């Protein structure tokens, strides 16, 4: 299974629909401070189901929606989509959030609940994968996880 591409639309500093195609091997993302690199990391965490906004450096869910710039108005919603390839099959998950507080979850062609996405990720053996997304400064914390949390990592691998 591999992640074929991400689509960010209205997510944090990405107002325009942005496709990030991922390849096999190592993809590096570079750019000056503040240009939006870590926002891409946040979008992966979010589409995979992160529920705590503070883990995405925000305080309110609205912080995820493009809030405007000197040349563009704020948007009313955000959507992040992820396409996974499994043998010949393509699996699409997406998540939307609206300023009025409404959330939508999408699996392939239909709306669903967050739980359905989590179940699908578990089937694809990517449940709990948040452990393998390391935001700035977080890699060091792996060694200081609680003993029960370290155990969880072994259990998930087993």
């Amino acid at each position, binding site marked *: 299974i591999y992640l074929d591409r991400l689509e960010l639309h209205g997510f944090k500093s990405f107002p325009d629909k942005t496709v990030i195609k991922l390849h096999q091997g190592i993809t*590096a993302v570079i750019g000056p401070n503040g240009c939006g690199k870590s926002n891409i990391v946040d979008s992966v965490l979010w589409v995979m189901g992160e529920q705590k906004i503070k883990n995405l450096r925000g305080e309110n869910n609205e912080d995820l929606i493009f809030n405007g710039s000197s040349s563009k108005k704020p948007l009313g919603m955000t959507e992040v989509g992820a396409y996974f390839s499994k043998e010949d099959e393509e699996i699409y998950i997406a998540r939307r959030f609206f300023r009025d507080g409404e959330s939508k979850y999408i699996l392939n062609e239909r709306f669903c609940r967050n739980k359905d996405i989590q179940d699908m990720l578990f089937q694809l053996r990517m449940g709990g994968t948040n452990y393998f997304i390391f935001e700035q400064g977080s890699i060091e914390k792996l060694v200081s996880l609680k003993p029960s949390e370290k155990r969880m990592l*072994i259990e998930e691998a087993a």
Partner: protein
Amino acid sequence: SRVSFSEAFNTIKENFLKNFKILFEGGEAELCLMEPDDLLETGLEIKAQPPGKRLLNLKLLSGGEKTLTSLAFLFALFEYKPSPFCVFDEVDASLDEANIQRFLKFLHKLKEKTQFLIITHNFKTMEEADYIYGISMNEPGISTIYSMKMTGKEKET
């Protein structure tokens, strides 16, 4: 189940020690069960002793040493069961040049089974990448992505 946990644990424990010795060029380390008699509930502990040093509280390790120890553990998990993808946001920020090289050698092996997305400011890391995307904010406040061709490794988006 108890059998697969103990099998996974033993292999990962072995991998962890091997990886630690590669990343630190020696030293001793251990992934240990806090209650070996209670396989269903026991927590895990990491002990790390860089070469020539005495075993000390993990907190006393340096920033770079903590990162390397974490990577030794993470790679031990991946060698047992590769994750389809892994995202690193500036994990090389606290590593010196020599340790970045050791880190990149690991990625070179692991990337066959795992897609890595690495955010970095480091030139050696960029050289190791198979693809590079640049993010820019030419229009202030608006992020745009562009692919960059690498000399000798011409790629398209």
